[in-house]
Each structure stands twice: as C-alpha cells, then as structure tokens.
C-alpha cells in the first residue's frame, strides 16, 4: 500500500499530502507509518453490476477522499430526441434503464400528456401504478440480492433473486415483457389486465410477501449484517438535505420526501405514508428498502381493489408545444424529466435527472473517512444505477 499509483488527469495530486519522511521530521524523528495512496475502484469490480470508477485516496486503511468518474456507458439518449418522433420516443425512454424501465416511460408520457393537456383514463392511471410498484418490488429485491452477495451472504442473494423471479413472471404475464414492458404510451396504456390476471397478481404477491418477509427478517436480524451496517456511513438529516439526496437514501435520514405524494397516476387515491428511519446509517437505508417492498405490495392490493372500469387510453392528435417538468418516484428516488417542444414531431430537448445522479454527491461524502473495506457496502447502500445516470 506504499506505492503511489499514477492518477488520472482530473484527480487531485496526492503529493500535497505529507510523505512519511516529512511526517517523521514533523514529529521529531518518530517514525509514522502514514502515507497517501490512490486505489482505483472500478469500473469493473465484483460488487458493481455497472461501471463506475472511484479514485480512492487512502491513508493507511482510511479513505480520505473519493472522486467518481462516470461516462463509461454514456449513450447520448437525450440527443436522440432530435431524430425520433415524440410518440416513438417512449420506447427510447424505457430503455434508459433495465430495472425501472416502466417508470421512465411513464414519466416521459406524463410530461408529454401535461404539455398536450391529455386526460389519461383512470383505469390506465391505476394500471400504471400497479406496474410501477411491481418495478419497485423487483428493483428492491435485486438490490437486496446484490447487497447480500457483496457481504458474502450467498444463500440470501439466491433466495431474494428467486423471489424476484416471481415478480418478473407477473410482469411478463401482464405486459408480455420482463425487462422492457412496452405497455405505457402517451394517452394511457397499451394493455389491460383481465380478472384472471388480477387473481394471479393477488395470489402471487401473497407468496412474494411471505417469502420476502422471511428473507428480510433473516437479513435485518443477522448479527454480521448489523455489525457491518449499523453506524456505518451515517448521513445526518441536514447532510442528506444539503446534498440533495432523494429516495430511500434521503428517507433513511429521516426526511419523508416521496414523489408519489404529488398524486400522479393513481397515488392520489391510494393510502400510504413514506417510510423513514431516523438513524441515517447504512442499516437504515437497507431497512427502508426492505419495508418498501411490503408497502408496494399493499399499494398494488389497494389499486386492484379499486381498479375502475373503462377505457385504457385516449386518442392523441397534434404535436406537443411548450415546456414541462415531470417528476415521479423511481425505486431509487425522484426522477426529473424536462421536455421542451415547439409544435413539431420532434422535441427540442429531453433531459433526465435520475435519482442516482442526485445521490452521487452523498456517496462522495459518505466515503470520506470510511474504512477501505466498507467502500463496496457504502456504494451499494445508495443502490446506484449507472445506466440511468449516464443515459
């Protein structure tokens, strides 16, 4: 750990840190085994499902500074809006992310619908909420598996992904797709759910709930998990607010901000309260996500019980004009869509601010002062989605 790895151009030069010899002089000749080293973390790393690079400046085993580099999977999807028809662009928006694909498409549709003053049928709004919550459940179960895997809890990783498979099967049964649903469109949704599928949803979600209860109970009561997570990576309420955190990362610091409370889709008709924890540590972030699995299941039960009859879409004519910002709650937090249109088939601007983009500054802060061994855990506690972030 004494070698100094050459740093990329954007990395602060660690030469400003005192060398061992300088420290020895400063302490009156007493040898001090403290020097600074830069350890590259990623873009390929066992705990990272997607590429992000961190330059970790460490002093002994403590991280004193972390600098992220992204851009490995920047696809320029925002630029494509200049070439694609605004009706077709739903498919592009859905492909921003493979985990929260449906909510990306939904947010895009909501922004266009607001610009064109389209009133979406209530049944379509309820179906959007059901599929959005299914996305949240499978995203949180995916995260739980990755988290368990990073901690060496292989069996829990397998079990959480086994349960997630049930959710993916439900998504396939109701939309025809497992990753890209393709069921949201401007003016409503493309597919309806029949009574048989409603029954399937209820019976399968009952199993998902029971199995998830068991898995999350094992995970959150495990002594090793608590030892690794409790009191580690604490983000105070004030810090989380100042850094602009969103989603479970923010709610685990005691702030009950949830975009679903804005009342989009069917959420204005559904009863729920944002799940918060006061501790702000890594364990609290895990508890919030685990609890949100059951909250989403309850929301789907409510939505199915109140699912109104009627049309699932309205005809869309004309082209959008003006500007609009739409916000929804993705599994990782608030996503912001900004659209600008000039009355033609192509939008002038499509801009997405994803939840991970908002949570990255908090990650940089969390890593300062942490143990090197805790870096993978802290990265996973914000549940980063790099494909979303880079677009």
């Amino acid at each position: 750990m004494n070698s100094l790895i050459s740093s990329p151009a954007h990395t602060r030069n660690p030469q400003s840190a005192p060398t061992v010899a300088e420290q020895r002089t400063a302490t009156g000749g007493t040898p001090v085994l403290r020097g600074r080293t830069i350890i590259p973390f990623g873009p390929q790393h066992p705990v990272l499902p997607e590429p992000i690079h961190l330059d970790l400046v460490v002093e002994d085993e403590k991280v004193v500074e972390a600098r992220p580099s992204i851009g490995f999977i920047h696809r320029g999807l925002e630029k494509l809006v200049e070439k694609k028809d605004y009706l077709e662009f739903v498919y592009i928006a859905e492909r921003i992310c493979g985990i929260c694909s449906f909510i990306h498409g939904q947010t895009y549709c909501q922004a266009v619908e607001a610009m064109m003053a389209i009133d979406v049928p209530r049944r379509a709004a309820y179906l959007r909420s059901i599929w959005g919550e299914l996305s949240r459940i499978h995203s949180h179960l995916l995260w739980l598996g990755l988290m368990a895997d990073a901690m060496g809890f292989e069996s829990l990783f397998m079990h959480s992904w086994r349960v997630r498979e049930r959710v993916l099967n439900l998504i396939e049964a109701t939309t025809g797709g497992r990753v890209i649903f393709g069921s949201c469109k401007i003016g409503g949704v493309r597919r309806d759910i029949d009574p048989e599928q409603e029954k399937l949803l209820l019976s399968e979600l009952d199993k998902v709930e029971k199995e998830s209860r068991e898995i999350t109970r094992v995970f959150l009561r495990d002594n090793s998990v608590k030892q690794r997570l409790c009191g580690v990576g604490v983000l105070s309420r004030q810090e989380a607010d100042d850094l602009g955190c969103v989603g479970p990362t923010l709610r685990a610091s005691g702030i009950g901000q949830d975009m679903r409370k804005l009342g989009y889709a069917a959420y204005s008709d559904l009863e729920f309260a944002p799940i918060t924890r006061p501790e702000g540590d890594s364990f609290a972030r895990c508890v919030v996500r685990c609890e949100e699995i059951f909250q989403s299941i309850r929301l789907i039960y409510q939505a199915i019980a109140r699912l109104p009859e009627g049309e699932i879409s309205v005809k869309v004519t004309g082209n959008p004009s003006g500007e609009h910002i739409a916000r929804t709650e993705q599994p990782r937090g608030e996503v912001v869509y900004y659209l600008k249109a000039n009355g033609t088939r192509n939008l002038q601007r499509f801009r997405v601010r994803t939840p991970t983009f908002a949570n990255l500054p908090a990650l940089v802060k969390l890593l300062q002062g942490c143990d090197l061994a805790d870096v993978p855990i802290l990265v996973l506690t914000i549940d980063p989605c790099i494909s979303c972030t880079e677009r």
Partner: protein
Amino acid sequence: MQFEIIAPDALLQKASGLKNDGYRLVQIGATRLPKRLELTYTFDLNGGLRHLRMELSPTAARMPSITSVYWGAFLYENELHDLFNVHVDGIAVDFHGTLYQTTIKFPFGSTKAPQANPLPPSAKPPSGDATLATTSMPRP
C-alpha cells in the same frame, strides 16, 4: 411553467437566497437553441418548483458555480461543461472535461450538426469485401 429570467451574475446571490429559504436543488439543465443556450436551475420547496433561467451565447457561455451554496451541484456543472461547452468558474470538484467520455466533444454545444466524414477513395474497401471499414468520428 413559470421562469424567473436572471443574468448569470445574479445567479449566486439568487441561489444563496433560495438556500436560506429552504429550497432544494432539483436539477440544472441546458437546452441548445439555434441562437442561444438556455440554462434552467430548478429548486423545490415542499413539492413546489421554482425555476431560474439564463440565456447565454452558445459560443461564449460562462457561468459562476453554485457549489459554494449547493455543494452537490458539481455533477450538474461538470455535465454543463462536458456536453454543452459551458465554462463554469469555481466548481468545488472540477473534472476538467473528463466526467463524460464522449466521442464528439461537446455534443450539445455546437449549433452545427456534425457532418459525415467521407472516406478517401483509397480507404474504401473493394466491392464484395466483407471487411468493415472504420471511420473516425467527426469532431466539431
């Protein structure tokens, strides 16, 4: 959407005022238009949004950083530079153009559409050859 049009010089003071009032930074975005660059700073207080807008020349866009007020803005400001060629002065964490690794430099920054880079005749593969010719991406 209501926008408060301000001059770039007034941004820092405005941002400080919003921060003191409890506003959260939601996003910073830019839009390239034929004759200008629009910058929108969006803030949130209890679910209500407030937008600050600046209109800049696309060829000499320069902005002060607000990272002294909203530290987390550094990612947005690096993005403004890398994608739109906006020079942001005083970013707390400055990547100096290496945040995004794009083939085309400042892909949203130029008002000209990138031109195709035709192959010289000698570089063209003979007909029937299955080998794919590679071209360098055009740079503005």
